[in-house]
């Protein structure tokens, strides 16, 4: 991480700054979505943008996720660079045709002639007591679709750098931000920097076990690593940052080094992002693993409202520590 300046801002501010900078740099960038203008979204992440760029470039839309995502696709095909705001990741369900059948395939289907340089900004993550339809982490769906790129920033620094890369990319890119991270703070240079896709970030080096976390689960992994250090277990923590493209090389190399791996992601446990990552590692590091690659996702249940239940469904550092201890004890 370049240390060109020590400036602590929130994740939310980092996103806002990336958008503002890109909109200043490039006139074709615009934002469309529900309550993105004066309200700055319910999470207030976009506050101030409409004041600078006007309602022509920060468009409040009706509650028509399918329609305005499609509008984004058409605008992207004809010279604009839309940033489509989907208020909750759960509403991605409504946009799937436009993103998967249209945006993702148009470049290929046209034999490389048409392009869809569109960013979809949405979110993931539970724990807000928002109930089953406002708490999902559905990013694996998009990761499965050729033609899309899928980005999961885990820090304010990454949020800015990855969003900039997304906006400059000529392909449809879907960014999932964890709703619980908007107030997280971190160092974010004022510089114009872009983080390349497909490059994992080794958050902490270690030798006994590799913890791979995505999005807010990176924080869980780091917490777990601290707790494990107390038990003399040295954990390496890696954040893939983008799951499509996936930096297989870095993940496999770490697995080969430590010989034990846990993958943590907030999507539902079964058929989630962890399955792909675990498979890639189980294959790539096959002859070096001392224990099976383990996965921790959200419990396979619709996310319950009641706090006492919801908290049981989300991965936490304690679970990671327990599992890591077992893995390190085995073999």
């Amino acid at each position, binding site marked *: 991480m370049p240390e060109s300046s020590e400036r602590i801002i929130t994740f939310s501010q980092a996103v806002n700054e990336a958008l503002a900078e890109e909109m200043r740099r490039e006139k074709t960038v615009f934002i469309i979505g*529900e*309550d993105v203008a*004066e*309200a700055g979204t*319910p999470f207030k992440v976009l506050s101030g943008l409409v004041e600078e760029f006007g309602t022509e470039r920060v468009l*409040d*839309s*009706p*509650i*028509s996720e*399918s*329609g305005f995502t499609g509008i984004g696709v058409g605008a992207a095909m004809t010279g604009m660079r839309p940033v489509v705001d989907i208020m909750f990741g*759960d*509403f991605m369900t*409504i946009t799937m045709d436009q993103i998967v059948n249209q945006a993702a395939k148009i470049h290929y289907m046209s034999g490389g002639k048409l392009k869809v340089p569109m960013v979809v900004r949405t979110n993931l993550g539970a724990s*807000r*007591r*928002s*109930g*089953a*339809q*406002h708490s999902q982490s559905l990013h694996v769906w998009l990761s499965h679709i050729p033609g899309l790129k899928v980005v999961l920033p885990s820090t304010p620094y990454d949020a800015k750098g990855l969003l900039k890369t997304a906006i400059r990319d000529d392909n449809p890119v879907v960014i999932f931000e964890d709703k619980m991270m908007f107030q997280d703070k971190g160092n974010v240079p004022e510089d114009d920097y872009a983080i390349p896709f497909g490059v994992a970030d080794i958050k902490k080096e270690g030798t006994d076990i590799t913890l791979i976390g995505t999005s807010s689960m990176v924080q869980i992994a780091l917490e777990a690593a601290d707790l494990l250090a107390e038990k003399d277990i040295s954990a390496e923590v890696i954040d893939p940052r983008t799951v499509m493209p996936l930096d297989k090389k870095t993940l496999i190399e770490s697995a080969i080094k430590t010989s034990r791996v846990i993958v943590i992601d907030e999507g539902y446990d079964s058929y989630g992002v962890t399955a792909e990552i675990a498979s890639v590692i189980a294959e790539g590091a096959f002859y070096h693993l001392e224990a099976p690659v383990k996965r921790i996702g959200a*419990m*396979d*249940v*619709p996310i*319950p*409202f*009641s*706090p*006492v*239940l919801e908290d*049981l*469904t989300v991965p936490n550092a304690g679970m990671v520590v327990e599992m890591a201890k077992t893995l390190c004890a085995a073999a």
Partner: protein
Amino acid sequence: MANKDENNSQFNSAEKDITEKEHSIHMFRQMLKIRKFEENVNQLYTSAKMPGLSHLSIGQEAVAVGVCEALRNDDYITSTHRGHGHCLAKGAATNLMFAELLGKASGYCRGKGGSMHIADQDSGNLGANAIVGGSAGIATGAALSAKMRGTDQVSVCFFGDGALGQGIIYEVMNMASLWSLPVIYVCENNLYTEYTHYTETTAGDITARAKAFHIHAEEIEGQDVRQVLSTSGKLVQRARSGQGPSFLLCNTYRYFGHHVGDINRAYYRTKDEENDWKTNRDPLIIFSNWMTSSGLLNDSDLDQVESEVQTEIEDAVQFALDAPYPKPEEVKKHVYA
């Protein structure tokens, strides 16, 4: 356990064998119950006793009560994120609702649904819905089901002006019209979709949208419960007798924010506008004024209702506060039937 009015169905206008006075008191009580319920929800939120957020329906009581009073207990409704009013008006019990809002095991959904997913099968409420427009298919499907099963049940789909943005509404209105289904689309236009005035998100003419599908449509003052009741009564009658779907546009207003946390609203609407509705178009004032001025009842009758409702709500809140949380093993139950 439920404190719900066992005889609720007898009060609805569709089969009223009670006096006009009794019926009026009942409607007033229902509206007041909603108002006080919501005030307490707000209270629970601000005192940090309620997890998450809630969308209050204060100001919109006449729509919920006027429509639901035109329904039988076995008729269906589907509701929205702003659904407490619909739920109560259709016959749910305040104590089990508060329990649900607090995530308690004795709540309507065992604490698993919460404010945005309250459902009460026993009173025909197929559920609130946190997806805007998400219940339009469900309500229409319930109407198809009623028709297929040969009952004369009617289905009501409540939704806000914001849901007019969702294509599914038009898809199902088309089918309801083609198949002449007993469904009523009740649009509560409270002027805002979250923080945006509906005129910025809604082109043209709302009732014309329904009429284009050859759906009978009416627009009414949603603050006057008598007007809501009489119009819905007519539409329910149409639906029940096989004359097909209809669309009811109710002009109304939410007094509070989009949700309990939406305190500073100056950037999207004025205090004057809020005060105007509260003062001149309040459903409780309009209705109680009518009742007293028509001599149906006097202030002391109203006071009595007020104190009864007050007691019920206080008890209900206490019930919910005292209720236990679900046990951890509950988390994996009910994923599959």
